[in-house]
């Protein structure tokens, strides 16, 4: 299995330990990752999609054309990148007028786009192409006894016709099953399927309200579960749920839930160096990391 790796910007710039985790764990599961030369912003929803549709689709087309030229589907972890690229691709493949215009804009750059390359989320590939059985066989049930909760990335759920691979879309289970494949026990709670609240302008424009929004989820986890960790598979969910606990603790909060990207846990279970695959965080992960020494 081969995929074009689309990292986006937050992962390589702010949380490159997640990039390392992805780059070392996927080949162990027989997935080859190919870098795409000259890729750009997905583009994020707050950029060209909020300014001009043609500019949006030409930038999506630029990225898609790189994968298409190599005959590869794209593999994406970041929820926003996954959703923006999927929606961009949808416009280009299902609207002949838009496709023609995008190709007209791409032509002088020596590129074309048909929409042949699909956009795949990393949890979709892990679950549907690799499978839980193979994951368990590769690593053994290393997380035995650890309680976890899941943050499902909204961008991989809605609108399900366009981005979805889990079902039912509003009651997803795939990331939970992947975590169970590592031996952890997944606890359920009342705010399990709500958004993390980290993307877009909510947290920037309404810091107090956005913190309260996140606090509701964190309190539910504390009161209703035995979870020691939160598992995500989206760089925004990861950074936000980690950083917001620190922000709340600077007030009178007392939150200590370690937050992991799925591939970080996977890489740890495979025996990779915690310093390289899971060292950047706001809430300490030492207690969990100690399990692997």
């Amino acid at each position, binding site marked *: 299995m081969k995929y074009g790796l689309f*990292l986006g*910007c937050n992962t*390589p*710039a*702010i949380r*490159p*330990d997640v*990039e*390392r985790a992805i780059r070392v764990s996927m080949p162990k599961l027989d997935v080859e990752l190919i*870098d*795409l*030369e*000259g*890729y*750009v*912003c997905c583009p*994020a*929803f*707050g*950029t*060209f*999609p*909020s*300014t*001009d*549709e*043609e*500019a949006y689709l*030409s930038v999506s087309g*630029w990225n898609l054309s790189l994968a298409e030229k190599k005959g590869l589907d794209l593999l994406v972890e970041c929820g*926003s990148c996954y*959703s923006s690229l999927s929606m961009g691709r949808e416009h280009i493949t299902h609207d002949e007028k838009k496709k023609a215009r995008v190709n007209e*804009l*791409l032509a*002088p*750059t*020596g590129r074309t786009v048909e929409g042949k390359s699909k956009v795949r989320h990393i949890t979709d590939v892990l679950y549907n192409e690799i499978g839980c059985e193979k994951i368990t066989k590769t690593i053994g049930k290393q997380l035995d006894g650890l309680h976890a909760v899941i943050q499902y990335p*909204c*961008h991989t*759920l*809605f*609108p*399900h016709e366009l*981005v979805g691979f889990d079902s039912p879309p509003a009651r997803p289970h795939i990331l939970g099953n992947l975590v169970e494949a590592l031996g952890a026990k997944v606890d359920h709670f009342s705010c399990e399927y*709500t*958004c993390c*609240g*980290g*993307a*877009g*302008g*909510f947290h920037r*424009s*309404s810091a*107090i*309200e*956005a913190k*309260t*929004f996140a606090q509701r989820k964190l309190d539910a986890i504390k009161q209703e579960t035995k979870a020691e960790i939160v598992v995500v598979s989206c760089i925004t969910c990861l950074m936000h749920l980690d950083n917001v606990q620190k922000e709340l603790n600077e007030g009178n909060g007392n939150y200590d839930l370690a937050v992991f990207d799925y591939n970080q846990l996977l890489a740890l279970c495979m025996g990779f160096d915690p310093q390289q695959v899971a*060292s950047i965080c706001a809430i300490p992960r030492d207690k969990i990391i100690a399990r692997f020494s």
Partner: protein
Amino acid sequence: MPPNPLAQANHDLWKEVDESGELRYCFNCSTCISGCPASEANPPLLIRNLARMVILGLEDELLEEDTPWTCVTCSRCEEMCPQDVKPFELCLAIRRWQSQNDETRIPPSIVEIYHRGYTQAVEKNTEQRKSLGLPEKLPVLTEYPEELKKFQEMLMKNEVIKENDYMFKSGE
């Protein structure tokens, strides 16, 4: 008598915002608000009200609205809307309409993307990357100056960018 804003409304506003006209099927049920994280923002994002504003043609009010920019892009509203109005797409369409009618709405992040392909400085944190055993450099656009130039020329063909090209030239 206070002036009646509806009498002076721009009845073609919906066409300017979204030609598809999907939003005319909105029947104000509020489903889009009930699951919306940004409906808890201050002031709240009430996508139903924005749809109403567009349909009624209240363009001055729409231009003033900051709330579309608090959307977290989760697409819950898109999933749940019983009338297939595509409220999230509407939210983006309103931002585009604002950007096209008021240059101060244009997100500065597009200028960064124009200059380096990205908003985050992907090409700069080489030390940290090295310490994690990663290749110091990624094959991002800035590594290929010729391609970067083509990328910029492609973007410059775009109306909004062309009309506001001063934003993109400064800093070069």
